[in-house]
């Protein structure tokens, strides 16, 4: 009886594998076929620009501070229109672990992990990307966000309270009961 049952099981197993012939491959031929990456894929970090084309980074050092492998290094500077910007920005990709903490820490949505993941060099030194290599022309994942139009800071062309979704500052003294 058990011999009969094992023969049935054997046949079922063989049939299960034979059925797979029509299904096609569930793997892909990688370099020719593109991978379908999930929307939240964490690839190589890049510095994005705001919709007006100015760089978003304000050189607050938060990404550098939160980075668990200490692979981000930058120097802050200030432009003539009072906007802060990174004079230099370096990421060492032979240490980066693509954890995405820098993206989470960034208050201006400047540093973003985009979907590039396959890049290689022959030497470790070539993995240190400078600002020119990191700064991209687009806005990344957040096409409409502009930090300076939201934040309550004064700038040369706008005063406090003039940003979008922002009310004028309240005069504390006139508000007393």
């Amino acid at each position, binding site marked *: 009886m058990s011999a009969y049952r094992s023969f049935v099981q*054997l046949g079922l*197993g*063989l049939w*299960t*594998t*034979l059925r*797979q*012939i029509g*299904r*096609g*491959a*569930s*793997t892909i*031929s990688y370099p020719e076929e593109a991978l379908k990456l999930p929307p939240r894929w964490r690839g190589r970090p890049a510095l994005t620009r705001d919709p007006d084309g100015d760089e978003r980074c304000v050189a607050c050092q938060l990404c550098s501070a939160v980075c668990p492998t200490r692979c981000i290094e930058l120097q802050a500077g200030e432009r003539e229109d009072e906007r802060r910007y990174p004079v230099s920005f370096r990421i060492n990709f032979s240490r980066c672990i693509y954890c995405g903490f820098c993206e989470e820490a960034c208050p201006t949505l400047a540093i973003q992990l985009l979907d590039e993941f396959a890049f290689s060099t022959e030497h470790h030194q070539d993995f240190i990307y400078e600002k020119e290599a990191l700064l991209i022309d687009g806005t990344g994942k957040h096409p409409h966000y502009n930090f300076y139009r939201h934040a309550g800071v004064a700038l040369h062309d706008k005063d406090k309270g003039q940003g979008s979704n922002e009310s004028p500052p309240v005069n504390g003294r006139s508000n007393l009961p």
Partner: protein
Amino acid sequence: MTLFLMALGMLLTTVVLLGIAGFLVFAERRVLGLLQNRHGPNRLGPFGIGQALADALKLMSKENFVPAFADSVLYRAAPVLVAFSALASFAVVPLDRGFSWAGNWDIGLLFILAMSSLNAYGVFLGGWASGSKFALLGAVRAVAQLVSYELPLGLALLAVVLLSGSLSLNGIVQAQWVPYIVLQPVGFVIFLIAGVAETHRLPFDLPEAESELVAGFNTEYGGMRFGYFFLGEYLGLTLIAVLTAALYLGGWHGPWLPGWIWMLIKTFAVIFGFFWLRASLPRPRYDQLMLLGWKVLLPLSLFNLLCTASTAALWRLG
């Protein structure tokens, strides 16, 4: 002149057989890919058919290395023995009516059994001479397995010999007025199982068993010596398939097409069956393998032989 032509023909046969073995390595990987929802090798040439060539080139360009702890004479001899015994067996296999080197030889089947025993020696010596524990364990397994599966194999073949009254493969194929799988279904199954165990292929690849024994008997081998083992294995697979076709599936008999095409179709169908088995079944434990051989297949094949013999005797009397 005839001698020269004969030598040339034998060389050609050998080269073609080695080519088939190389092609089968590639074909197996493609078929396994098909059965396991993946691509398999598809880089070199159309459908990746150049993979066999690339593998061969890689193996040939490797260093011919002999480990310091190995018995160097036996270590060198073993792979040659494996490949030779598998190749020599093909001499008695007929591809069509009168199309073989020694298809009419009176002891063809016996010769094949002898060569498959020699094959076991090659595997055992390879494992023994390597001087490594894994290889030795693989070799011990190989001998135990091959000894215990040669008995059912021989007994199943004996029933065929009883039916056809001949030990030459030509005679056996000619005697098949109906494919012997109809008259010998049990013998066919026994032959197939024992054949898979003889060629030590999955699911009976315990001598190699890469998940337990690294690579079993050929752990210490590399380069073309490993290539000989590999070719020997695939030649053995082809041999068992071609024997199955000749002994049980009617050989070159078949309607419409020429005989040798029928022979090839049947052979490759059986080979596909082996690939299919490999894709489907897990490897049994060692004691389960021995139990199946000694306690199930051996009594079954004896019973099969007894039934065939008594039926044949009754037929002759009545």
